[in-house]
């Protein structure tokens, strides 16, 4: 059967066909839909772990226990999981272990565009890279076979353009290997990495990567597609598609395994062509390896090292380098549209994070942020995020700044899922080493930015089962925080009162702001748009300062000061009442007023 599948859906299908027993991961664009789709197959086990390191340990545990384990994350998740990734390479496994890294060239939704192929080389682990959805599915099975044959973890590297593009896939049968129950291994020489054992393992994994390099020479996903002898292209991943599209005649060496490299195959290919180039997104990873083989090769002198490729990037770069005639260039339409208004993502109408940022903006304190929807608190007019680097960073950064004698009171802002991910150790540090940092946990009862995934605070699992809900208030108290309280997300006055008190303290404090995401299905049912009472509004603009997309400028001007009055877009307003709370003239209706109005 043939189906159109996104790369992520295809990987999920591949996991099912390959009989993955335990799959664990943490949501992160562009990888999130892999586990979401895998969880829909019958009789599978998949989970959201609190973070990527835990996910990799879980997958390793399954593989130690003799069952296929898989961990799934975005590229920066592998930074979090690097420690586990590295020891898994040292120990090897009893059954297949595959780790999916979804890299994000062009940073569509990431803080960097690191090229995780380097992790494969760093960890002496093979790396597979599909070029479309069919390969994304098939390479899951290939990766497990490779893992089991060579006793190694395997990195399956995807990129945004593989994850989020759809192409047709021929579905296969479930070919899960029959696994007999067997006792957990008692093999400390292999599985206990004390120095005395580790020194013996290191030569083993160095030999293993040499063996895999020999295997790569005949790996069917490394293939030469012969063409003209004048130009040879080595390429991988989605860049292969652009190479095929743009260079109609060139010879192509498509690498499905980008670490370790098949040196003999590359030498043979290089000899068969006059000019050799590498077309790869991001780092000159293959190019440098080929160069080290002593083979003349070009790559990043022609194609960009930053961002994502597309046919145009490849074609125009090739024209500039003289690889294609000038006539191959595709002209852009000759039209000037001027500077258009941007449309950056913003906090949604009714977002429960908005009041907190409105108050933080008022207090003018430095805010050390974190990764999630609430990072959008940086956008004017809220403008209340001043640093954001990675998940879990904000609390540590605030503590460090406070310890360095930063004259202002630092506030760290973190989401519920992010707090579980890596915020807890940082908050323990604030308590243990005593800094007057105020930590705000924005608890919207879901993992928001990646599209509503369950987390340890929601009481439900990825498989939609009820579970224990980790409660934040007792958890924070148990860490030793004396000043902690929970307030409702739309209660502007309570948030302001608590924060004004906390920023004066010289002890650690935590404010937990609880309000479910306005986009959750149950919350959507309660949306009631508010209205502006035009006779009361005098165009004071205060409600514009909360940056709500549902509040527009009316064509009607206030007679006295000639400023536009406010107008609420009923199609966008959720009725959160934040604007009504801050309006000094009571010119915005509350929901209760609306109901009374309807009744009369």
């Amino acid at each position, binding site marked *: 059967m043939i189906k159109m599948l996104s790369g992520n859906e295809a990987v999920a299908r591949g996991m099912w066909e390959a009989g993955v027993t335990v799959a664990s991961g943490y949501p992160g664009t562009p990888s999130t839909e892999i586990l979401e789709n895998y969880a829909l197959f019958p009789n599978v086990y998949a989970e959201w772990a609190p973070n990527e390191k835990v996910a990799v340990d879980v997958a390793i545990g399954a593989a130690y226990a003799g069952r296929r384990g898989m961990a799934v994350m975005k590229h920066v998740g592998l930074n979090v999981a690097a420690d586990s990734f590295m020891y898994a390479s040292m120990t090897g496994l009893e059954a297949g272990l595959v780790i999916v890294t979804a890299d994000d060239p062009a940073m569509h*939704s990431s803080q960097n565009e690191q090229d995780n192929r380097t992790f494969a080389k760093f960890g002496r682990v093979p790396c597979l890279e599909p070029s479309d959805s069919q390969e994304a599915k098939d390479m899951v099975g290939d990766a497990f076979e490779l893992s089991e044959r060579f006793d190694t973890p395997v990195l399956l590297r995807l990129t945004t*353009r593989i994850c989020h593009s*759809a192409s047709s896939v021929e579905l296969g049968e479930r070919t899960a290997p029959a696994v007999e129950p067997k006792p957990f291994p008692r093999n400390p020489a292999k599985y206990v990495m004390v120095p005395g054992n580790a020194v013996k393992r290191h030569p083993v994994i160095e030999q293993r990567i040499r063996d895999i390099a020999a295997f790569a020479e005949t790996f069917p996903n490394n293939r030469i597609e012969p063409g003209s002898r004048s130009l040879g292209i080595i390429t991988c991943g989605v860049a292969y598609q*652009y190479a095929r*599209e743009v260079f109609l005649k060139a010879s192509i060496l498509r690498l499905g395994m980008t670490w370790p490299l098949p040196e003999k195959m590359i030498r043979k290919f290089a000899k068969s062509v006059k000019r050799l180039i590498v077309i790869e997104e991001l780092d000159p990873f293959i190019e440098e390896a080929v160069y080290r083989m002593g083979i003349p090769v070009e790559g990043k002198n022609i194609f960009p090292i930053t961002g994502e490729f597309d046919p145009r990037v490849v074609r125009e770069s090739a024209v500039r380098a003289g690889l294609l005639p000038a006539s191959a260039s*595709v002209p852009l*339409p000759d039209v000037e549209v001027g500077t258009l*208004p941007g449309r950056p993502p913003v906090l949604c109408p009714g977002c429960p994070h908005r009041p907190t940022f409105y108050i933080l903006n008022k207090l003018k304190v430095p805010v050390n942020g974190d990764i999630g929807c609430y990072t959008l608190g940086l956008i004017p*007019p809220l403008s209340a995020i001043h640093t954001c680097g990675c998940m879990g960073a904000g609390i540590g950064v605030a503590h460090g700044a406070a310890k360095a004698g930063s004259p202002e009171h630092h506030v760290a802002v973190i989401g519920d899922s992010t707090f579980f991910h890596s915020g807890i150790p940082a908050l323990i540090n604030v308590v243990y080493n005593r800094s007057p940092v105020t930590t705000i946990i924005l608890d919207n009862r879901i993992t928001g930015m990646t599209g509503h995934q369950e987390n340890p605070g929601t009481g439900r699992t990825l498989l939609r089962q009820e579970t224990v809900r980790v409660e934040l208030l007792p958890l924070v108290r148990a860490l030793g925080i004396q000043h902690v309280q929970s307030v409702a997300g739309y209660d502007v006055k309570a948030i302001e009162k608590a924060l004004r008190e906390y920023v004066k303290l010289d002890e650690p404090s935590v404010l937990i702001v609880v309000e479910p995401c306005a986009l959750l299905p149950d919350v959507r049912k309660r949306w009631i748009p508010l209205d502006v009472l035009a006779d009361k509004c005098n165009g004071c603009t205060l409600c514009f300062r909360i940056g709500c997309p549902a509040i527009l400028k009316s064509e009607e001007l206030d007679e006295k000061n000639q400023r536009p009055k406010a107008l609420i877009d009923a199609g966008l307003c959720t009725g959160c009442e934040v604007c009504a709370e801050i309006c000094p003239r009571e010119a915005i209706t509350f929901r209760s007023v609306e109901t009374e109005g309807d009744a009369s």
Partner: protein
Amino acid sequence: MKETINFLLCGVGGQGTILASDVLVNVGLAAGYQTKQAEVHGMSQRGGSVTSHVRWGKVVYSPLIGAGEADVLLAFEKLEALRSLKAMSSGALALVNMKVIEPLTVISGEETYPSDEALRQAFAQVTSHVKYINGEEIAGSLGNLKVANVVLLGTLSALLESGGQVGAGLTPEVWLKVITERVPAKHIELNRRAFQAGREAVGN
């Protein structure tokens, strides 16, 4: 009938561009093309710009369309239409929904939303094959603003036929089959009417 057709869809998160591109890619499959589709939607749930690339062809390699290579532009919103103008090839077909969704910077008065005149002038410099319709108005007359995307698909289907981009085998029934497979049972009739109303809007 063209060998390869590159469709570029653009709009704002929440406008139904993703359903529309899903329909388009599957209509292509049903019509016997090889197809690929790519979503570019970093954080679209938060009201950002969304684009989707759909390619039909005998053989399709790249999932992305390079700038200057879109044969068909389906724009769900006026500002996004202008933003995608340079992605079109000269003389391409454009279907522009005359919907305005103001970004925050326009609401706050820092930036100005382009005028209809500027929009029409800019498009006229790139192609004479532009159709402007008001999908929301048509959808509203059917009683549900949400089917504006299916109205647009209806118009697009008729424009592709009259422009000769597709063969006679690609009948309205092929489109309707793909659409009705993707909407809840209770909305099938509404979506049929929306598609038909979109087709009829070509003559307006």
